[in-house]
């Protein structure tokens, strides 16, 4: 039975890899098939309809709310010009030293990465950040990679992610926060190293481009008409972080405080209602893809936690999971590439199901699975050529996602190694 479930999972990975099915749809189908194979009845206790679909779909509801709030805040940062002003100031202060500009954009990306994730985060930091870096001579691949590495620095403090791991792995938020704080230095050091090493290796480049004097439509958008955001509004991305990390406030109120701070520091009272609604609705649009994914992940988690599935998978997964700390680090570091290309260790895909299996079968404590999943997430969030932020950043810079993957993978692989070492030392 366990072998059949693994074969079904492999088929699901194949469907996602070959893009026969969107990831969210593939995960739901996978969940239903796994539930039937595990012998779940159609309705009733531990059933396909009532447990897997009905209880699974809203299981990650708190994460979905956090995602909506993060997207809302992201939209506010975009509309009020906070992110663009930060990049503009960085270029003005450090433009004649490209490394300084890259480090500045890295910092902005990290701040943005704490608020929202995926392609919206890349767009928020990269829409101006990437061409600004290229304009001061930073090579295109380095520029795209800087945005992604920056977002990855923010990932350990991305509040919706804390909520996701807390709910999905059934761990208290302080445990998730505790591990993320330990993961952060690895992400930071790798990102700063990336900027210094790649700048040193590649230097700067300037092109005589035929596109340089092409007329661009000059219909100033809302932010351009309003001008730069005031300096105190530039602190907006730090507000939820300070509240959640410094004052240990819950995630959703922290994010709401960020929304309010952005609003009162940038918007006249009579325009507040309009702006709040407009950016909230815009935020829903941005949040739609991850919410669809989190509904599917909730369903998959419910399926792999069914008693029949746990009984079937336990002996197989136990035999393949190292308990020795050194072996644990070695094996799971070598398996890092399996989280790329929507592979089986991608935590926003089948990886979530595997994490559920590892916990529900009792093979690893939930904290160990948290360490593995977050370490892999640092790789996936930067180097996966199929992840939306990598595709967007690479294409916007004018290079291929594969070029970005090749350049960034060594750095994020090292981050994963660091995360796995901390996991083994702390929890195994």
């Amino acid at each position: 039975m366990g072998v059949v479930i693994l074969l079904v999972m492999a088929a699901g990975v194949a469907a996602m890899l070959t893009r026969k099915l969107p990831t969210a749809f593939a995960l739901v189908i996978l969940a239903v098939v796994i539930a039937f194979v595990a012998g779940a009845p159609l309705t009733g206790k531990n059933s396909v309809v009532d447990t897997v679909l009905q209880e699974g779909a809203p299981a990650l509801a708190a994460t979905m709310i956090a995602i909506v709030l993060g997207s809302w805040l992201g939209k506010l940062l975009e509309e009020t010009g906070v992110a663009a002003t930060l990049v503009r100031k960085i270029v003005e202060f450090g433009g004649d030293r490209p490394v300084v500009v890259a480090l500045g954009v890295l910092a902005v990306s990290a701040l943005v990465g704490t608020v929202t994730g995926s392609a919206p985060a890349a767009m928020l930091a990269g829409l101006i950040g990437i061409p600004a870096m290229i304009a001061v001579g930073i090579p295109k691949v380095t520029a795209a990679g800087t945005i992604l590495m920056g977002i990855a620095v923010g990932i350990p403090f991305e509040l919706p992610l804390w909520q996701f791991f807390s709910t999905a792995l059934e761990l208290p938020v302080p445990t998730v926060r505790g591990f993320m704080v330990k993961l952060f230095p690895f992400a930071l050091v790798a990102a700063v190293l990336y900027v210094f090493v790649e700048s040193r290796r590649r230097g700067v480049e300037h092109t005589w481009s035929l596109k340089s004097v092409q007329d661009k439509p000059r219909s100033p958008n809302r932010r351009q008409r309003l001008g730069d955001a005031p300096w105190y509004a530039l602190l907006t991305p730090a507000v939820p972080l300070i509240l959640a990390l410094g004052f240990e406030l819950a995630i959703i109120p922290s994010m709401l405080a960020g929304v309010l701070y952005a609003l009162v520091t940038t918007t006249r009272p009579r325009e507040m209602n309009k702006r709040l609604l407009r950016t909230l609705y815009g935020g829903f649009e941005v949040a739609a893809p991850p919410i669809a994914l989190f509904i599917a992940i909730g369903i998959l988690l419910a399926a792999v936690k069914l008693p029949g599935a746990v009984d079937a998978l336990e002996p197989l997964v136990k035999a393949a999971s190292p308990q020795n700390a050194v072996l644990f680090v070695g094996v799971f570091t070598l398996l890092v590439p399996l989280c790329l290309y929507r592979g089986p260790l991608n935590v926003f895909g089948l990886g979530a199901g595997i994490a559920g299996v590892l916990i529900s079968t009792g093979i690893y404590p939930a904290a160990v699975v948290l360490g593995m999943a977050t370490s892999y997430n640092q790789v996936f969030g930067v180097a996966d050529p199929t992840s939306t932020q990598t595709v967007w950043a690479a294409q916007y810079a004018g290079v291929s996602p594969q070029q970005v993957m090749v350049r960034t993978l060594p750095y994020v692989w090292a981050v994963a190694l660091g995360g796995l070492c901390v996991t083994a030392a702390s929890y195994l």
Partner: protein
Amino acid sequence: MKALGAAADPDTDDLDLAVRLLAATPTHEGRDPALLRRWAEAADAFGAALEPGPCRARIVERDDGLEELLLARYTSRPATVEICTDTVDRAETLIDELGWRSWYPVGSVRAAALAHESAHEHFHHKETRTALKEAIGHSALRLGRFRVLAHVAGAEEIAAHAYARTVCGLGRSPLLLTAALAAVVGAPGREN
């Protein structure tokens, strides 16, 4: 010969083209056109007055410029100037087609490309960069008498074009030729 867009209208002033380059450079969205014009003027004058010097970078040729919409590229590690021979050849043909030979003599496109990229080499020296910032005079921060001069993205590019124009004795800025090339090979559905 296909019609050139308004961007490559020979009646357009060289300075207008420089302003257009600045306006299209990220971080200048929404800036006052009069301010951009002042910066463009300063950068152009700075580039035109730069001391001419030999191009010390290694020179290599490539033939994918039209595909990449590039005429030349400078990379600092190692210091190399890449000349896109296909774009240079197309530019020379275009000059004849447009009757612009009096502005751009035979062989001047390659010479301008080398001069342009060697100007970027100049800007690797801190003193030159500082001098350009002083010439433009834009402040990033001002606290009483204390002032931090701002880097103006795109200014080096304008200065490099002005340097190429002066050193190669061109009748018009290379920016006009760039706009004309972009109009015939750059737009979707055009000849490339």
